[in-house]
């Protein structure tokens, strides 16, 4: 019996080992409950995407009201209120600008919200011409919406509300009146875009339906994992954007003779506030969708993903520090070094999530399929 018992234990060990290898060989979820792709999609919609667009819509509406008051009664105080409204709306946009698919990708809405980067200065030329020629089309939201995206959105508002010529908005006069009318039309169009996108994501018969019901007849998502893939891609591209373009562009990590980029919204100096909003939005995407929680029901929270959200959070004080060092952080040696050091956590939070999506969610974030080559 004793011998038999020992043999039995040995056999059990071998069997257990064989089963373990079988689980490993079969892939990440063999023998386990499947990754909850539909749950991730629903949570991302309800906890992150819709609330963020609602906030954007709300802040954009407040901004319209503030600019309308400025146009009605030009004054330094009303200009400050309009500038504060701009900042709030811009920050709200930063929280959700990583979502580049769905309703925001229709009718050139994404570029109409924020036309940047613009290495050849197209926006500046268009806006200067519209102001100098007093183009009446830019005063009417409907006609403005049909014109070049370089004339629209936060980029144009930044020029109108914050450049040195914006002093004209403080007192009555023809120059200020035209400028304010253009700004009001811009703000109205931002609000309209925010509203249309919010409604499409909220309406169960619009894009929300497409998002929540992947399948063979779906126009965008054929399989449940494709919505997780879209979120993963939004996160990864969002981080790449912050690292390589928002910060890397003005820092001047240029190839050859390419000049450093002019920072986004340069007149308001809100580039780092927007970068903070971007990172907060990416953190909220992970938290809201539940990607930083349990990958499957009944399992403990995913510690690696929780460390990612922690690492994202830790970047924010350093961005604030760099912003406090200089109003022009890309030209200040200390601020530059502070920003450059963020390159490491920005890369780490990218690569860790990339691995997570492959190993835990079973996604192929392909070597070639993330490219536009």
């Amino acid at each position: 019996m004793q011998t038999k018992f020992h043999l039995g234990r040995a056999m059990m060990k071998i069997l257990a080992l064989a089963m373990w290898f079988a689980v490993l060989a079969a892939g990440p979820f063999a023998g386990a409950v499947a990754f909850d792709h539909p749950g991730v999609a629903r949570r991302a919609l309800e906890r992150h995407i819709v609330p963020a667009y609602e906030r954007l819509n709300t802040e954009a509406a407040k901004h319209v009201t503030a600019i309308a008051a400025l146009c009605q009664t030009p004054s330094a105080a009303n200009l400050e209120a309009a500038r504060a409204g701009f900042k709030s709306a811009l920050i709200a946009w930063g929280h959700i600008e990583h979502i580049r698919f769905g309703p925001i990708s229709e009718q050139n809405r994404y570029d109409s919200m924020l036309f940047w980067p613009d290495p050849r200065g197209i926006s500046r030329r268009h806006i200067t011409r519209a102001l100098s020629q007093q183009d009446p089309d830019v005063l009417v939201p409907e006609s403005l919406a049909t014109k070049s995206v370089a004339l629209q959105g936060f980029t144009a508002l930044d020029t109108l509300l914050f450049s040195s010529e914006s002093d004209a908005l403080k007192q009555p006069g023809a120059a200020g009146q035209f400028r304010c009318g253009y700004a009001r039309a811009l703000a109205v169009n931002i609000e309209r875009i925010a509203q249309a996108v919010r409604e499409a994501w909220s309406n169960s018969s619009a894009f929300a339906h497409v998002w929540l019901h992947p399948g063979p007849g779906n126009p965008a998502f054929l399989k449940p994992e494709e919505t997780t893939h879209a979120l993963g891609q939004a996160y990864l591209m969002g981080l790449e954007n912050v690292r390589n373009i928002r910060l890397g562009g003005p820092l001047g990590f240029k190839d050859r003779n390419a000049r450093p980029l002019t920072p986004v919204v340069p007149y308001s100096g809100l580039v780092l506030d927007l970068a903070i909003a971007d990172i907060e939005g990416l953190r909220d995407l992970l938290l809201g969708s539940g990607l930083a929680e349990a990958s499957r029901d009944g399992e403990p929270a995913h510690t690696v993903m929780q460390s990612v959200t922690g690492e994202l959070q830790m970047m924010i004080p350093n961005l604030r520090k760099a912003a406090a060092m200089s109003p022009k952080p890309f030209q200040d040696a200390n601020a530059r070094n502070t920003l450059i050091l963020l390159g490491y956590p920005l890369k780490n939070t990218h690569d860790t999530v990339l691995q997570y999506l492959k190993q835990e969610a079973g996604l192929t974030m392909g070597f070639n399929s993330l490219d536009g080559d």
Partner: protein
Amino acid sequence: MAIDRRTFLLAGGAVLLAPAPGADAACHPDVFAAACREPSGAYSAIAYDETCGVTQRVILPGRGHDLVQRPGTRECVVFARRPGTFAVAFVAGGSRQPVHFSSRPDRHFFGHGVFSPNGRLLYTSENDFDEGRGMIGVRDATAGYRQIGEFPSGGIEPHDLCLLGDGRTLVIANGGIETHPASARENLNIATMEPSLAYVDIATGELLEEHRLPQSLHKLSIRHLALAQRDEVYFGCQYEGPITEHPPLIGFHRRGEPLHLIDAPDALYRPMKNYIGSVSADRNGEMVAATSPRGGLALVVDVATRRIITERSLSDVCGVAPRHAGASFLLTSGAGDVGTWSPNATDGVLHRENLSWDNHAILLDAV
């Protein structure tokens, strides 16, 4: 504090000619070349044999893209992926040190090139980024690839290019998407992009013909080309519009005619995710294969009927090259898989190499 670009981007890579494990001229008549990423994260150009596997690797300074074989020789040139600035000429199966050359300071490569029929001149698709226009660089392969000229590509963002049978007419896929190295790979002009197919006389630089898609399809970027029989140009596209729209992604063109898109049931194009990464004609120019890494699919078109005749699934498939036998293709994937397709054959994955194949693969002509 000395912090530089390299520290920030964690880029870089040594340049050396690696030994050729298993190199054996008698391995197999079909030898391919492709760029790849090694498990270490380094990038290289690979010579690959269906029987012997990887026979040569040339380490690159960054990520490569397409390659081209110099006619009459075993020399290959691999180009940097956009917005890279390097190119490396190496001899497949040879031990000569690679020749490195680069774009002008105010240009970068778009990842593709083609040789003149006599192998003397190399034409490369390049970006004049400060002017926002596409250029074709001209280099002398007999003089260390010294640049001797350039001419406009006839559009923005020239990507793939082919030389027609007359040896003089260059057909260029102007993708239409403006980018600038200061803003990495960000697309700058999606709202106004205008892709085109342009024909240019390489002797004079004259724009001979230029074709655009209807305005409703101005976001359908024409990017990759394959030359089928009788100089029929097949092109593969990427769509920059909403993901809920699915325009045709494959088209063809003959000089003097408008562009034709190949209609197919939505069920065929929709899984391609609005993205074709590579196009290749078979050895006889009778079939054309187009791959979608996003969809993990390859579609094969019969040139005679201009219809899609079959599809093949392979996760993250992108590289596609003809095999010496007609009506047959080699397929490579970002997961390292190498597969084949031919009619009436139950081809599967041949091998899985421990590397990530890049977007393109080419068949090397025997010399």
